C-alpha cells in the first residue's frame, strides 16, 4: 500500500483501482509487515472484503459512496465497533463485543471507507509507548528495537509502514501526536468538542479527542472533514459548522505569525530535535511567515496538572469495569466487594491500576483541595496563558516530543520517566486546543523527528494549511521506512 488517502480515493473515482484492489493491497501489506511490527490486534479480512465488494457494486451502479469511497482505514481498538471485539488492549475487555458503533465509525462507513482492522494501544490509552498493552508491544517501523510511541502506537505504525493510508487514534495528553512524531507521520488532535467521542471508551473526559493519523496534511484534512461535526450523543460535541478543510489548504500561507516559546526548547530537549524544529521554523519564515517570541512560563506545570486531572477522571470512568454487566469477572468471589475488587485486580494492568490509585487519592476526602482542585486551578492558568500567547501569534510551534523514540523496556520501570515523554503535548490537551504533529527531520541515527503546531480553538484549518505549505517545500513526510 503506497498510495495516500486522497490518492486512493481518486484512484477509485477514476476507476484506476477498485475498492477491492485497495483492500487486498492493504490486507497484503498487513500480512507482510505486521508479523514484525504487531500494529494490529484484529484484522478484519472477511468483513473488509465484503465491504469493499459492496462499495464496488454501488460504484458500478453509479452511487456516490462518499468522500472516502473504497479507502482502507484502521481504527484504534478503543473505538467501539459492532464488528469484532473492542478490547482497549485490556484483559478486562478481552472478549468484549460492542453492541453499537462509535460515531466516528458511523461517519467512516457513511463516507465509503473500508475498515480493515483494529490497532494496538497502551491499555485504556494510558502510556506513551504501546508497551502497556494486554496483547503485545508494537514496534517502530523505523527501528524494530524502539517503541512507536503511544498510546495510538498501532495506528501510527500501521500508517508509517504504509499498511493503510490513514487511521484513527485518540489523544488525551498527546496519544495521537507523540506516536505520529515517533513514526514519522502526521497526527492531529482536534479542538475539544470538534469530534464526537460517542463510542470512544472514556479515559479523561475533559481531555479526550479522536484524531486522524495520515502521511500528509492533505490526507489528515480529508479524514478530519469526515469525522468532525456535531453529535447529540456526546454532550461536549460542539454544534458549529465544519469548514472545508481540503479547500483551506489552497489558501496562501502569509500573513502568518509563528510564536516560539523558549520554554519549549529548554532543559531535557534532545539537541538534534531542537535543531530540526528550528530549521523547520526557518523554512516557514522563508515561505513568508514571521517569527514572534512568546513566553509560556507555566509549561513546566503541565505535567503534574495533567496527571492529577487525567488520573482523577480515569479513576471515575473506569469504575464501570466491575465484573457485573460486561468484561472479566473473577471466578469465585468471596462477596460482592470482592467481586469488584478481584475482577478489577485480575483484569487491569499495572499502569491502569497506578492511575486509578493516583486519581482516587487525588479525589479522596482530605486530599481533594490540595491535589484535584488545585490542578483544576492551575489548568486555568495554563489555558489563559496559552490563549494570551495565541493572541500575539497565529500558531505556536514546538517539538512534539523532547526525545526520539526510545528502546523497548527503557522507561517501563519508571512511570515518571515515561510521563516526561509527553511534556510538550499536554498544554494543548489541558486548554482544549487543536494541535498537529508533522515530520520535520531525522536524527543522525535515522529516527523520525516531529514538530507540533498549535492554534486557537477551532483553527484546525490554519494548522492543516501551514503544514500543507511546509510539505510542499519539504519531503520529510514522504520518507518511508525500509520494509
Amino acid at each position: 500500500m503506497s498510495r495516500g488517502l486522497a490518492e486512493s480515493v481518486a484512484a477509485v473515482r477514476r476507476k484506476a483501482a477498485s475498492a477491492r484492489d485497495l483492500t487486498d493491497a492493504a490486507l497484503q501489506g498487513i500480512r507482510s509487515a505486521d508479523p514484525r511490527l504487531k500494529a494490529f490486534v484484529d484484522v478484519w479480512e472477511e468483513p473488509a472484503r465484503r465491504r469493499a465488494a459492496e462499495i464496488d457494486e454501488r460504484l458500478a451502479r453509479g452511487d456516490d459512496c462518499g468522500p472516502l469511497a473504497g479507502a482502507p482505514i484502521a481504527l484504534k481498538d478503543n473505538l467501539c465497533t459492532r464488528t469484532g471485539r473492542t478490547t482497549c488492549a485490556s484483559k478486562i475487555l478481552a472478549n468484549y463485543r460492542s453492541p453499537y458503533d462509535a460515531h466516528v465509525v458511523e461517519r467512516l462507513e457513511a463516507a465509503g471507507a473500508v475498515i480493515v482492522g483494529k490497532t494496538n494501544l497502551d491499555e485504556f490509552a494510558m502510556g506513551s509507548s504501546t508497551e502497556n498493552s494486554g496483547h503485545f508491544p508494537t514496534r517502530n517501523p523505523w527501528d524494530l528495537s524502539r517503541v512507536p510511541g503511544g498510546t495510538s502506537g498501532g495506528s501510527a505504525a500501521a500508517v508509517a509502514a504504509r499498511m493503510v493510508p490513514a487511521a484513527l487514534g485518540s489523544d488525551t495528553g498527546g496519544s495521537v501526536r507523540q506516536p505520529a512524531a515517533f513514526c514519522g507521520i502526521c497526527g492531529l488532535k482536534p479542538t475539544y468538542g470538534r469530534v464526537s467521542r460517542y463510542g470512544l471508551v472514556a479515559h479523561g473526559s475533559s481531555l479526550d479527542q479522536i484524531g486522524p493519523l495520515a502521511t500528509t496534511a492533505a490526507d489528515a484534512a480529508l479524514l478530519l472533514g469526515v469525522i468532525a461535526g456535531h453529535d447529540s450523543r456526546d454532550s461536549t460535541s460542539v454544534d458549529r459548522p465544519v469548514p472545508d478543510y481540503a479547500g483551506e489548504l489552497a489558501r496562501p500561507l502569509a500573513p502568518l505569525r509563528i510564536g516560539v516559546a523558549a520554554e519549549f526548547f529548554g532543559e531535557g530537549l534532545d539537541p538534534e530535535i531542537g535543531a530540526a524544529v528550528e530549521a523547520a521554523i526557518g523554512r516557514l519564515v522563508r515561505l513568508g511567515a514571521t517569527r514572534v517570541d512568546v513566553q509560556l512560563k507555566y509549561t513546566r506545570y503541565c505535567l503534574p496538572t495533567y496527571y492529577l486531572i487525567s488520573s482523577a477522571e480515569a479513576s471515575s470512568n473506569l469504575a464501570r469495569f466491575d465484573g457485573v454487566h460486561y468484561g472479566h469477572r473473577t471466578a469465585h468471589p468471596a462477596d460482592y466487594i470482592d467481586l469488584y475488587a478481584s475482577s478489577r485486580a485480575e483484569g487491569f494492568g499495572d499502569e491502569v491500576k497506578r492511575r486509578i490509585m493516583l486519581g482516587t487519592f487525588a479525589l479522596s476526602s482530605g486530599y481533594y483541595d490540595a491535589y484535584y482542585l488545585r490542578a483544576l486551578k492551575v489548568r486555568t492558568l495554563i489555558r489563559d496563558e496559552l490563549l494570551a500567547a495565541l493572541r500575539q501569534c497565529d500558531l505556536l510551534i514546538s517539538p512534539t516530543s523532547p526525545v526520539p523514540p526510545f528502546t523497548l523496556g527503557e522507561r517501563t520501570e519508571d512511570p515518571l520517566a515515561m510521563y516526561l515523554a509527553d511534556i510538550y503535548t499536554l498544554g494543548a490537551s489541558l486548554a482544549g486546543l487543536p494541535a498537529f504533529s508533522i515530520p520535520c527531520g531525522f536524527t543522525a541515527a535515522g529516527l523520525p523527528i516531529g514538530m507540533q503546531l498549535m492554534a486557537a480553538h477551532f483553527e484546525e484549518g490554519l494548522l492543516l494549511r501551514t503544514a500543507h505549505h511546509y510539505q510542499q517545500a519539504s519531503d520529510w513526510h514522504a520518507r518511508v521506512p525500509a520494509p
Partner: protein
Amino acid sequence: MTGDGASRMSTSIDETTVRHVAHLARLRLTDEQVKRFSGQLAAIIQYADQLNELDTSGVEPTAHPLPVHNVLRDDAPRPPLGAERVLANAPQQEGGCFVLPKVLDQESA
C-alpha cells in the same frame, strides 16, 4: 511565587494510605503491589507537589476547556439497544437479568 498556605502540606503515601485508596477504588492489591505502588505514588505525588509553588488564590478552577454548559437535547423516544444486545456481554445472565452473588446479609464495607 508562593503557595497559599493551608494546602502546603507534605503528603506521605505510606502503605496504609495505599491500602485505604485501593479499597476506595475497589482494587485488590497484593502485598508486593502495595509496597511498589506506595513508592511509585509517593514519587508522583512529590512531583505533583510543585504545583504548590503557584499562587492559585482567586483563580477559578477549569473543569472543561470550553464554556459549554448544560447541553440538553430533545426528550424524544429513540429505539433502545434491546435486552438481548445489552446482555450479550454479561459474565452471567439468567432470564433477561444480570446474575450477581448474594449481596444481602453482608456488612457493606
